[in-house]
């Protein structure tokens, strides 16, 4: 291949030689482990094929669950694909959107960014665990959301609701601004933020009255 063989008008922009060099530089030739969770950042990561699953006990929504888990498996994947608890959503796979938010010992965490092995022996709460198991009554946060007609497409709703649950435990008397900060780790692409904040404020109000 000749030097700077032009393949486009602007040779600096589009020479075949520099393009191929660049492709090699970004490691783009046919894929990478990035195909699982996305993005070329995982180039060079070792494949998990052949990695051994281990049977562990997870405490989810107050119940001990025995489950086989890979060493690199995230809590969100374990919940969704091993325990069939699909209320926890995957929106980005990488701590960008909060759709997978769950509580670990009452604190909100991104389920996509915790390894399942990390939460052994800790209390995991998901959206499925909020209703009263005996009466089926909705949690205070869920009641507040229902009253205020919260959410549009609601793919983000489970994550937001878990963050609201965490918020009212820490700060049951937030200002609207404090509530916005408490929920700022969750994205809503319908941008129903105003109504979501109203739900959070109503949830805090209900929590205070209990």
């Amino acid at each position, binding site marked *: 291949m000749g030097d700077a063989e032009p393949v486009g008008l602007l040779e600096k922009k589009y020479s075949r030689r520099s393009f191929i060099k660049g492709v090699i530089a970004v490691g783009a030739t046919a894929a990478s482990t990035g195909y699982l969770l996305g993005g070329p950042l995982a180039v060079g990561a070792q494949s998990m094929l052949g990695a051994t699953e281990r049977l562990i006990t997870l405490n989810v929504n107050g119940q001990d669950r025995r489950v086989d888990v890979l060493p690199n498996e995230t809590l969100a994947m374990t919940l969704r694909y091993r325990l069939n608890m699909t209320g926890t959503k995957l929106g980005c796979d990488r701590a960008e959107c909060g759709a997978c938010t769950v509580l670990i010992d009452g604190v909100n965490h991104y389920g996509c960014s915790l390894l399942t092995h990390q939460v052994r022996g800790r209390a995991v709460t998901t959206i499925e665990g909020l209703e009263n198991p005996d009466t089926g009554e909705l949690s205070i946060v869920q009641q507040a959301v229902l009253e205020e*007609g919260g959410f549009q*497409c609601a793919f983000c709703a*489970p994550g937001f609701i878990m963050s609201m649950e965490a918020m009212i435990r820490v700060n049951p008397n937030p200002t609207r601004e404090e509530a916005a900060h408490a929920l700022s780790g969750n994205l809503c692409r319908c941008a129903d933020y105003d109504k979501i904040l109203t739900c959070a404020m109503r949830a805090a109000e209900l929590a205070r009255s209990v």
Partner: protein
Amino acid sequence: MAEKLIGTDIAPPDLVAKITGRARYSEDFRPDGMVFAKLLLSPMPHCRVRGVDVSRALAMEGVIDILRAEEVPQREGPREACLTDEPHYEGEPVLAVAAVTEEIAATAIEAIDVDFEPLPFVLDPLDSLRPGGPTAYSEGNRFARLPDAEQGDPPAWIDFKWTDTDFVEIDAGRMPNAEPLVEWSKGDVDAAFGGADLIVEDAIVHQSVTHHPMEPRTNMAYWENGKLFAHVSTQSTQRTKAAIAGAVGIDPEDVVLIAEYCGGGFGSKIAGTTVMQIPAILSRKINRPVMLRITRYEENYVGRARPGFQSWVKMAFRSDGKCTGVDLYIVEEGGAYGSGDNGTAGAIADLIYTPQNMRFRAVAMLTNTPPKSAQRGPGGAQIVSMLEPILAKAGRELGIDRLEMRMINAPDPDVVFGPRGTALTSVHAKEALEKGAEIFDWAGKQELSGRREGTKVTGMGVALSPYTAGSIGFDGLILVRPDGKLYVHQGIGNLGTHSISDTARPAAEILGLDWDQVEIVWGDSSRGMPRSAVQAGSQTTHAHTRANHAAATDAARKIRQIAAQSLGGSPNDYVLDNGRVFRRGGGAGMSFAQVAERAIQMGGEYDGHELPGDIHRETVPAAEMLAGEGLMGVAKDNYGRTGSTYTFVAGFALVELDVETGVVDIKEFVGVTDCGTVIHPRSLGAQLFGGCIQGMGMAMTQRWVFDPQYGVSFANRLYTARPPGMLDIPLDMKWDAVGIADPQTPVGAKGIGEPPVGAGAAALTTAIADAMGGRCLCRTPLTPDIILAELEGRDPAFGRLDQHVG
């Protein structure tokens, strides 16, 4: 009296499912034997697959099979296939692997050796228009019928170029007199500019923006007894069923489409999506259910984007502020498979500045960037965001208040606009502006404009954004069953607008029912769906309040006839209320449960065994399936209208611009809409704010950035092209509606989905320009870097018309 339903807040019937995690989106289904598909994506913007070695992958334990491009439908020209051996954008799917787990499928992808031959590519449409410039396809940059083609000749590839002379003008920042692909004009443009008191001229860039719904376009499919069961993420349902049937080459009646929930689409999942074909075809090949989970990274590429514009505009004004001429030229970035936002952009410019004299020219070019599609307010949102700061600039030069400028140039009800002289069913744009100005306190806040405190300068903006808001002629299909309840069968989608239930309210009101006597049937084609609008183009509220109104009117007639036949007298003697039909002024009556049973006994048109002749052929199978199950109301919307239906949104924003960091803080926002009768206030407010905030993200934070050398994108995740989060929007947001019914639709309601986007974006672009003393940057996104470079007078490090910077 049954309760009043229109104009009240009623939570949608699926809200409990949504907030308990029970709502099942397409990734939440787990049929027995389900396997996972994973895609191999093109690493280059344009290349050809010279060879593929799949032997290592196929030898892996757990790998089931591989699907290649030659096994999926392919068409000539720039027409997208779900898999291709000649990718035309980085991230385009090349092949799919099926394996028992997603991990194994992903590992198998890594074990496939693909020999890609890099090919020339182009990212910026202007580069493709330059003489000698690269083309997105090896064959050319345009696939169209040649100018000298005979009728019936197929389209052919063309290398469409502008001249060196055109580029002398372009490089000097002026509008070229280059050959357009679309052109129309009205009035006398030259005379308007010749006699103008002020001419404002600018070159403007509007960026391309990815849709990024929260739910990526994950789909799952399997086959049973020759039928395709497709669990898909789609904005529509009834129309999606037909789309996927066509894409995989089967009869629509052989598709069972399940899409009860959709995690957002914004125009990127209108009906069939391209990747939807992969699990359908792969599951047929391997005879097992296939889940194709689309990651956020993949969604960034395959998930569609709003086309970017590069444009030149000249606007002529009289000294009293009236715009008398618009000359607009748009170059549209068409992506790998083409787009067509520019037409609407031209018409909307004519609508909101009412110049009477206008020339519109446009060129849309194929580029090696991810595919474009309609995005909430396609064309309209871009042009409003681009041109409103120009109107404000003219106001400053003429010494006229910007709200006054907006009012002077806003359309009246008798407006006629665009290339076809479109008239509208109702226009209350000025009322929306007046109401918004009052809520925002525009007059009282004037003294804040340009005020500096510390490093922060306040700016205010006002904008008017219209968009189409309703179609007509679809079918309604409802049943009163022997349980006495009304079942409204909806073929529209459930993507969070609440129209799935809100458009059923007129049917309940006509039949005199409380809301708890109404069941909405949706999201599963096996339950029967009438021919419906695609859930896009802000059509649904208008189209399906009408269709359900028509079906309920048909049902009410039948109910009265049954009552009269059973109890005597004339049908007109009977009224419907609280689930009963009874003689006016008291007397004999029947419950709806009795009416439904009587309808089934009578048969004929009463229970759907005889159908009206004018309903759509796609409604017929659904109605036939439901015949005999109750009293059927089925009808086509024949109400008609004269002109088009448009909704308007007036947006007002107050921002603080930090002149040391370039960061813009949106402090206040007010949005007021003219969308006719308000059906569901709380949901309307959410749509209005949501659309406006999406517009703010489009104007400020989201972006596409490519490495020009290799054509690969940098801003390919949410954190590098971030949509607005909770802390990016004002805590103080207010909305209202003019609330004047549209006279040409029986319920009076127009759509709301799209017009807010332009209002949010343009209120922001005008407010930022105001904070900068009236300087218009004339590009989006207005990131801190770009703003700061302007404030500091630095070389921005990109060309005046460069696309994909931020």
